[in-house]
């Protein structure tokens, strides 16, 4: 059975070595977060951890770069809204 993690409650399958961003984009989804001022959808941009545009919430921790953080079985990833704090 394929390994999965959760993205906004939906199961995303991944291959070992995948980053969160790679797995989410492979599933056909595009957006990873929404900006805090204009509420714009954003996704991966620089791909190497420099631009911080792909930040998501991983197991409750906000501002994690989806292009750097490895996908792991069972982690809970959420689309980050604004600064990622309630």
């Amino acid at each position, binding site marked *: 059975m394929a390994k999965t993690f959760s993205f906004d409650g939906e199961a995303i399958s991944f*291959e*070992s*070595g*995948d*980053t969160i*961003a*790679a797995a989410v*984009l*492979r599933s056909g989804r*595009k*957006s*990873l977060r929404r*900006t805090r*001022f*204009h509420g*714009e*959808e*954003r*996704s*991966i*941009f*620089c*791909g*190497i*951890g*420099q*631009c*911080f*545009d792909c*930040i998501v919430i991983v197991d409750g921790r906000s*501002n*994690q770069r989806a*292009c*750097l953080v*490895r996908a792991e079985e069972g982690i809970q990833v959420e689309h980050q809204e604004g600064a990622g704090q309630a």
Partner: protein
Amino acid sequence: MPATSVAIIGAGPAGLSALRQLANAKRVIRVEVIDSNPRYGGQYWRHREGDPFPESELDPTSHSSTEIRINWHLSTSVWQIESVAGSFRIHTASSSGEKSSTVEVEKIIIATGATERTLPFKNWTAPGVMSAGALQSLVKEYQVIPGKKIVIAGSGVFALPVAKTIMEVSKKLGADTAVTVIEAQSIFRWWRNSFAFLLNPGKILEAVGYLFFMKRHGVKRLSKRIVREARLESGEIVGVMAMKVRSDLSSDSTNEVLAADLVATSFGFIPDMTLASILGLERKNQNDDAVVVVDSNQRTSLKGVWAAGEITGIGGHELAISEGAIAALDILEKSSQSWKLRRFRQRVFARGLAKIYPISSGWNKSLDDSTIVCRCEEVSVGEIKQSASELGADSARTAKLFTRAGMGLCQGRICQRNVKEIIDFVRSDSKNVSDANRETVRPIGGVVTLGGLSD
């Protein structure tokens, strides 16, 4: 007495080349290799976990020396360096910023490389617009092709390998992918580089090889155009509007629309000067980039610190390999004459490329005022222009104070250069000469949490 401890900051082509020379020396030496990526190889040799290293000669696991002790610090960024009584104390943090530690060395080779430059256009913040480097990494490392009609737009040679990778992986996956490369400059500018090509004949073959590959695989090429807008329909990219430009990238007002669902963009590379600035190394302007000043042995203005690779001037991985080797051989007090000859040829080629693909500031004349420039803080072109025309901002630094552009999580890495050019454009009447030694210095070189500091 030769050094017994060296830190190599940046494990890309320059850093790994330096490491090879240190390992080959068969001397008792401790080397601390620090890189923010989880694997060595830099951006140029990004590779998937478990795959063989793409450049076997520089693969650190192939060095057989038993005298050298290599301490690896991967997924680690340097956030501060102190000079203490003839040695250096390097403060590092894990990539999440939550663990910090310190290493001490006598000498440093700084090889922090470059980041890709992108230019803003309307809707470039939408999902589905990314840097060409991001696309290359998704396709090559993860076999993800996030679009069916891909436009790679910008200027410079980097679009060629990216287009090639996409076509190769697309074939392997049985996907149906169309790629169009949009280049801002005319291909005929290559004639200006004939001397550089004569000194580097292998590059002629490489260039011709790419052109044939693109023709055979149906990659379309358009030149003298840049993307003005990504067209969106209910949030999804449906096309791009390209405009014809002159060689200074200013528009000649002919627009055309192409269908696309993914836009990759790339306008060359910018040296990553974060640590060079923290160390206070002497800098200069070269082809509009701030670069580290080095002597013929790659020594910087600070005793005990060498610099190699893109931070001494954009020149590609081969030049970086030569410079890394020269720096390491100088530390070992050995001759590097053959590397210096190579470096000469490669520098001529790099200068030639910079002449073929200049990124002049004409791009910002046709920008919509509503276009976002600072992606983190969502600051628009109009706000930046206003900070210059009404509030007296005269540099990216002062514009930051008025607008927050460059104050977000990326600390201006993506927008600073573009903000500077917009400000210079608005103030073009006041003859703005910018000084490489006065670029913004980030006092903290990477992400580190307060919790990580208190450990």
